[in-house]
């Protein structure tokens, strides 16, 4: 079974989103926003004294997909051209790159449905384990970049991120671009070497590279020069790369500290309505719709997708 978790629009719903810790990276925003959205749906269900106040009452199942909460497709207030819609897709560690094409389509499709639009202006992709390092960059040393490319810098020990799989993923995005679904493509946390390598093998060039420079303005010269040369806009972000670790998600959905979508662990408790199995995050997508000429963020939210795996299947996975 697949879980599609959503924060709904987090602007204006306030507290969970902008509350402390405000300075932390936006992993806290995602988890707090999911939690708060679940909580408010549960409260509403309880308040309306529906016969069934479990998550079933505010989620929807379509085939093998469970939407929690049910997709809110109220859309945007003004016509499409008034908005700048940016979507950032986070690929997660532990997920095989072969699934990325399908994940990209799923994620974009959800955003389009949520916002009731047929295209987005910019898609930024974030690959697991790729973190821009200003020092590596300034040394202008092929080796350090090569070292991080080999996946050694990925602390979670996830999949090895190589140029080939990135290019393959990019090719999928190019077809979405060709179809007019995505106007511009972008990347996150790419240094100049990695960018250069990618540029050699792509048809639709990235127009944006997003790097995390919140605390210091020491963007290395080589990157600035390279980006200018290649017409790539350097944007800032404040997201962490491993945005939804399995443990965090398990806690959010679990019966004790979470919303109770998952059943308690152990096999003897049959009284619970919760789902059984191990939950494995697949991808996260963040979207923002900004009214262009007013600088107002009208809609911002996240979707997170997770696989719920049969415990027995998991056992066999782990044993191999």
């Amino acid at each position, binding site marked *: 079974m697949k879980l599609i978790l959503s924060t709904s629009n987090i*602007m204006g719903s*306030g507290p969970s*989103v902008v509350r402390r810790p405000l300075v932390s990276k936006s992993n806290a925003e995602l988890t707090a926003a999911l939690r708060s959205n679940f909580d408010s749906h549960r409260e509403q269900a309880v308040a309306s004294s529906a016969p069934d106040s479990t998550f079933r009452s505010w989620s929807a199942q379509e085939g093998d997909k469970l939407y929690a909460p049910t997709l809110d497709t109220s859309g945007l207030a003004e016509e499409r051209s008034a908005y700048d819609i940016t979507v950032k897709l986070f690929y997660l560690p532990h997920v095989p790159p072969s699934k990325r094409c399908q994940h990209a389509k799923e994620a974009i499709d959800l955003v389009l449905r949520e916002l009731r639009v047929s295209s987005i202006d910019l898609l930024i992709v974030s690959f697991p384990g790729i973190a821009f390092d200003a020092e590596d960059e300034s040394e202008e040393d092929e080796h350090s970049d090569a070292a991080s490319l080999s996946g050694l810098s990925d602390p979670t020990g996830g999949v090895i991120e190589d140029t080939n799989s990135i290019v393959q993923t990019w090719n999928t995005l190019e077809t979405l671009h060709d179809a007019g679904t995505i106007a511009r493509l972008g990347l996150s946390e790419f240094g100049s070497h990695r960018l250069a390598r990618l540029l050699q093998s792509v048809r639709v060039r990235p127009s944006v590279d997003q790097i995390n420079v919140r605390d210091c303005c020491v963007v290395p010269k080589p990157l600035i020069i390279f980006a200018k040369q290649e017409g790539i806009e350097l944007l*800032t972000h404040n997201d962490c790369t491993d945005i939804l670790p399995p443990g965090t998600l398990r806690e959010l959905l679990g019966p004790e500290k979470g919303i109770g979508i998952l059943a308690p662990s152990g096999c003897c408790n049959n009284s619970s309505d919760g789902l059984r199995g191990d939950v494995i995050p697949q991808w996260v997508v963040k979207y923002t719709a*900004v009214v262009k000429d*007013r600088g*107002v963020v009208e809609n911002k939210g996240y979707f997170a997708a997770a696989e719920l795996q049969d415990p027995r299947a998991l056992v066999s996975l782990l044993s191999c």
Partner: protein
Amino acid sequence: MGLLAIGTPLDWPEAKKEASKVREWGIEQLLAIWRRAKGKERDAMLWGDEIEYLVVCFDDQGRRVRLSLRQADILTALAEDEKLLREGGGVPDLQRGDARPEHVAPVFHPEFGRFMLEATPGKPWGIGFKDLLDVEPNMKLRRRIAKEHMHATEFPITLTTFPRLGCADCTTPAYPVSGPKLRSQFLPDEIANPHIRFPTLAANIRARRGRKVEINVPVFRDVNTPWPFKDPTVNYDLHNWPEDDDVRNGAAKENHIYMDAMAFGMGSCCLQITFQSKNIEEGRKMYDQLSPLGPIMLALTAATPIYKGFLADTDVRWNQISRAVDDRTAEELGEKPLAHDRWRIPKSRYASNSTYISQDPRLRPEYLDPELVIDPVLKARLVAGGLDDILATHFAHLFIRDPIVVFAEDLQTLDLSKTDHFENLQSTNWQHMRFKPPPPGNDTGWRVEFRPMEIQITDFENAAFSIFMVLITRVILSFDLNFYLPIARVTENMETAHRRDAVSEQRFYFRKDPFGPARGHPGSGSAPGSGTATPSLPPVEDEYTLMTVNEIINGQADDGSGRPGFPGLIPLVESYLDSVNVDVETMCQLARYLDLIRRRADGRLWTGAKWMRGFVQQHEKYKGDSVVGEEVEYDLMRVVEGIGRGETAWGLEKLGVLGKG
């Protein structure tokens, strides 16, 4: 200041006789605007800043600095600058050269003081983040252009007040004091812009009051300050005008610095920002939500520690301007029983806001002032003309005042395509916010002006505060924030902001939770302004608490009872910036601006007021007696003038303006 109409101004009390007519015609013009523009929609976010300068003249040999009264000559020089005109700039009021649609070069305007200049960008700013990077260079350009049209010894300075304004020999050229218009014993009539509007404004305010304006600022008591302090510059033996009796009747208060003319207030320089909203509803919301921020930003930009050659015990200009244009009669002030006037009026025409104007369901009736003075007849006319109750109340409140400057030529026929009578009242109500309807004849939308901030010494600081406020408006709209608190508390906060070092030493009433109650919350069912208490919401008193400026700007760890505290305006701005695409270069520049404000608020950096006070007190010629002498003033102004060129001096590192700024 608005455009300067030419005509024959009526003296008081002739102008008084026409007051009702002007008000009624002004209301009809407002209704015409309302009919034309109430449905105006989807206007872009445009904004503009206004920078005001003092023009000073250095005498390096004599180690003196004086105010230059050559405003007219300088404006003429600017108006005749071919290059400036070609690029769409210049001086629109002097109307030379063709008006160009594509304004790029800065624009210069006259101001009340003949020693003042105002400069605005040639066209409004947008919200594109790269636009924000142009603001500081443009402010520097304005300063450079202004300087290029002055004598070598003259400089444009961005200080709220000239430290020794009103002391002997403070202007060049010098003129005798005690003229017929101001009747001031400290300042000559020539201190005011000679355009007939300005002396008439000053004279009619004085005439309406029945005496001179009266400005008493508490003096700062230093180690050698004589105590009780009796302002030694007051002349009790002057007998030129009936108003010379004012001081013999006790106008000059003990332990205060006494001033007696409009120029002491209206000669102050401010930093004002105007925002265009997408429609009237958004404008009204912004007006309300920015209102509670007014006193906070006043305290944070404090830059006025010196008046008439003495250290004051306050740090900001606001109340002095308020008193300098206070035209209330003794009856209106409550000093005499009402006999000729219509009502008691608790505030000057220059004062903090007295009401909210939005139809926001979160506006609880308890936030409003039940005693708000309004003109019920004019309100009824506005309501009959289609305005909703709360907006009609706002204008019926502004229109309790008399028009001060009335031109005979304008009283012939009512022209509903013009707004002159409406603007006559609207623009002489100097509240800390101003709600501005779309002007006729172009596509400008509904606007809100944020007026409390003090001008800062450097363009870096002025850009930082301007852009901070711009970002705050985007934050308010994006997160749908709620800063409402009772308007009476905003008024109290305005007083608190005056205290010496209020930014570090005082606490302000502020709303604890800017997010609630959530949209669509059933909470406030009753219509705003309906005067009944709101059911099912906690008492209004529980919604707000006392906070320091640091807590309001940088956030609270928790609210003291374990719940999350106020998140802080800067963290909110950062959250907003996380949600939009900002390029690296812009983000770094914005971070510098936010850092200045963050550190001014937490006390690591000083306000301009604190720095100037310290500069005076450490000066070798200062005797610890609160007197800011000529040489101290000269050195202070030399430093202020030199900061932009990177020169250093005592304590400047505490101002946070060195380095790249």
